[in-house]
């Protein structure tokens, strides 16, 4: 029907561009959809899905090339129309597939759900790719023009996602991609029939959107869904951003007080909870002044080593929990680096439930931790970084530049003479993050000509550890202050100049003497020997290799088996499989 040497009409090139924009836009948007419904690391399957869709379409077109050439316009109409419809339908369907992804480790039948989940996204890719490949075989003599339209549309689709998510919800963006495909139907062939099909599709897609029929919600097992099952739970506010969906939930069962002492008798303060892609984040405190219980929170240890009226800088602000702790200690100034503009607006009360969730006077800087130190040289009295410790392996491919040796040096250089750098993290049964942090700190200190044993302290409870690194040696007064804090609130010291093993592991018993031994090995320069026999790779990360969450070492498997016997597998994570599958 379309001779290969006849040039494609401009409207067809425009249609090709729209479909290409829809395909690639959908592909990028899927990273958000999968992250919200299940797990963002699963997004690594998306590229494979897109490629499989194109491969299947290519094979199909090769098999039926003659028929497709004879009825090219019809094939284009059908494929574009089907793409416009299956795009929202696949998302709707995906939300109804019963899959408990984290249970995959012990319930192989979850693979069926996983297969169905992946398969339902394959259809729109196949149909969109069918449109593209049909164009290519019908106008094979004008490949250059087709490529230009295809690539331009693809680039526009890819770019549109991060830009559009600044101002609209993910569901609305998907509706636009469907409408683009509906428009392609109209442009593919002039005539009343295609106009009618296009208008009908647009009507259906808009109707789906208007009746909220395209909800992208976390799976039942995710924490937001679980909390929503509790009585009177309600979502106060929700916004999509290019890298996460922020949700503020009010529910009666929210009692977050991370790091609160077991000796504290105060209840958790009034709060709502911030969720990132349906996963729990920090509590957002519904208070106007710092609650007194902040004195009993483990992060307050940093202020035992800091001078009075400290200048405080907070990295990874989260929901502002650490800001309230800082505010309790009568600071001269609190600055915080936070890249996410929507989160900044939420915390300051410019968006969301319209009340600030930060103490008055906190200055928010829209930049990364590293950039902050480059742009604002000190002196600072307290710098605090909070690091979550995801399941081992899940973040193995993620880069972090705020925990490298170079980053430590940057922060330490910005500290005042009495300043302290505090890093808060979780402790695992087999420590990983905490050991890598102390390994990194000791290397940075040695590179700066300082003796780690005089500059490092650490304190923990049953779940959290705070590593404290000072610019000046920790003198007797500061040692006493930290010891008194630990005793009063029943925290265990892990490292401090002059600390004896008998003074550790007192209130929160851990097997094998707690963390005193490994920390001592790193601080006293025996790290190499220790590392060789340890189950995980806890070598410091650097700017050249900033994979802070990558701990797996093959040689460690034997150590794990030896240490934990039958439960050794609990210390590994299938998350590494995703990383390796992605070529990491």
């Amino acid at each position, binding site marked *: 029907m379309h001779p290969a040497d006849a040039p494609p009409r401009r409207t067809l090139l425009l249609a090709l561009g729209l479909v290409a924009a829809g395909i690639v836009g959908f592909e990028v948007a899927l990273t958000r959809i999968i992250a919200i419904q299940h797990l963002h690391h699963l997004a690594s399957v998306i590229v494979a899905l897109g490629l499989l869709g194109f491969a299947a379409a290519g094979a199909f077109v090769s098999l039926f090339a003659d028929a497709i050439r004879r009825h090219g316009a019809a094939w284009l109409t059908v494929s574009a129309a089907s793409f416009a419809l299956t795009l929202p339908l696949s998302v709707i369907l995906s939300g109804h597939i019963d899959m*408990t992804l*984290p*249970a995959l*480790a*012990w*319930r192989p039948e979850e693979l069926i759900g996983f297969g169905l989940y992946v398969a339902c996204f394959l259809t729109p890719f196949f149909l969109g790719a069918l449109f593209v490949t049909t164009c290519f075989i019908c106008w094979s003599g004008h490949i250059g023009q087709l490529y230009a339209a295809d690539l331009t549309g693809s680039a526009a689709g890819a770019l549109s996602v991060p830009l559009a998510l600044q101002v609209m919800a993910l569901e609305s963006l998907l509706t636009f991609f469907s409408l683009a495909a509906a428009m392609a139907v109209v442009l593919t062939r002039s005539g009343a029939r295609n106009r009618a099909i296009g208008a009908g599709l647009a009507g259906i897609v808009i109707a789906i959107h208007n009746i909220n029929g395209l909800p992208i919600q976390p799976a*039942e*097992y*995710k*924490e937001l*869904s*679980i909390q929503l*099952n*509790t*009585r009177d739970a309600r979502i106060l506010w929700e916004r999509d951003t290019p890298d996460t969906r922020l949700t503020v939930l009010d529910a*009666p*069962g929210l*009692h*977050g*007080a*991370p*790091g*609160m002492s*077991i*000796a*504290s*008798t*105060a*209840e*958790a303060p009034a709060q709502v909870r911030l969720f990132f892609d349906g996963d729990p984040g920090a509590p957002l405190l519904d208070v106007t002044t710092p609650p007194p219980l902040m004195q009993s929170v483990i992060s307050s240890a940093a202020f035992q080593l800091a001078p009075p009226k400290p200048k405080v800088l907070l990295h990874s602000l989260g929901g502002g929990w650490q800001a309230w702790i800082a505010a309790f200690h009568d600071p001269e100034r609190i600055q915080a680096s936070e890249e996410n503009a929507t989160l900044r607006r939420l915390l300051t009360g410019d968006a969301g439930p319209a009340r600030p969730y930060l103490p008055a006077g906190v200055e928010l800087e829209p930049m990364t931790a590293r950039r902050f130190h480059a742009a604002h040289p000190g002196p600072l009295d307290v710098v605090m970084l909070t690091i979550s410790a995801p*399941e081992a392996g899940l973040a193995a491919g993620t880069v972090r530049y705020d925990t490298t040796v170079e980053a430590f040096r940057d922060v330490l250089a910005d500290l005042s003479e009495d300043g302290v750098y505090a890093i808060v993290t979780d402790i*695992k*049964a087999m420590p990983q993050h905490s050991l890598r942090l102390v390994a990194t700190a000791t290397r940075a200190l040695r590179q700066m000509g300082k003796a780690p044993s005089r500059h490092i302290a650490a304190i923990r*409870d*049953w*779940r959290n550890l705070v590593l404290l690194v000072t610019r000046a040696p920790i003198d007797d007064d500061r040692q006493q202050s930290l010891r008194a804090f630990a005793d009063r609130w*029943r925290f265990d010291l892990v490292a401090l100049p002059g600390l004896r093993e008998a003074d550790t592991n*007192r*209130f*929160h*018993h*851990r*097997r094998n003497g707690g963390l005193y031994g490994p920390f001592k090995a790193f601080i006293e320069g025996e790290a190499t020997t220790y590392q060789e026999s340890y189950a995980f790779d806890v070598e410091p990360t650097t700017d050249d290799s900033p994979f802070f969450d990558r701990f797996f070492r093959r040689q460690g498997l034997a150590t794990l088996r030896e240490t*934990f*016997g*039958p*439960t050794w*597998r*609990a*210390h590994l*994570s299938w998350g590494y499989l995703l990383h390796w599958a992605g070529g990491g």
Partner: protein
Amino acid sequence: MRRSASVLLLMWLGVQVVLGQTSPALADSDRQAERQTLVQSLRGVAPDLMIDDPNVRAAMLRVPRHRFVPDGLQDQAYLDKPVPIGHGQTISQPTVVALMTQLADVDDTHKVLEVGTGSGYQAAILAQLTDQVYTIEIIDPLARDARERLTNLGYNRIQTRPGDGYYGWSEQAPFDRILVTAAAAHIPPPLLEQLKPGGRMIIPVGPRWGAQTLMLVTKDQAGETTTESLLPVRFVPLTSKSLR
């Protein structure tokens, strides 16, 4: 025709007899044999964390776990695995239930609070050891179903309540033992307050779907609290030669 019908009837009866002899699961509606096999296979997670309390083993033998598992997952009721029960929750792995019960060290004089009723299975196990079991569930449908299930199964002495377990059950406090089945970022002060001096609290800590660690919280006679992190409890193999 009549002869054919008689032959078919005899064949059907024969099949029923054979099935009755070879498939205990079909014959044993209470699934006692499966329960026996499961309980016999429970070992522990470490040489010093063995499931060796005969009272706990007897309790697990008496409670029909399959009655706490959703209909569609009945085949998994007697596997040593957690099973989803809806609303994003699970009925814990039998090893975890046994370990938590054993670590709680419950006797018949103890008043026990369970935070997080879930299906009601843990409460039913505890009820084998003491008559004073109180359990709270924050998710209303789960609380309703658990209450109905426990009543139907005859566990009439278990006190159930929908509510926020963070605040415990002050009207019934103090408790000798508290079992918390949901991970927490901190140990709720109201629960610590409702724990008797000399009391024990068991909490699994860690991500809901990841490796969790059992934690034992003890309160001495002076009211001072300490914690002890035990070993990971998820993904424990069904049996282990090293522990036999």
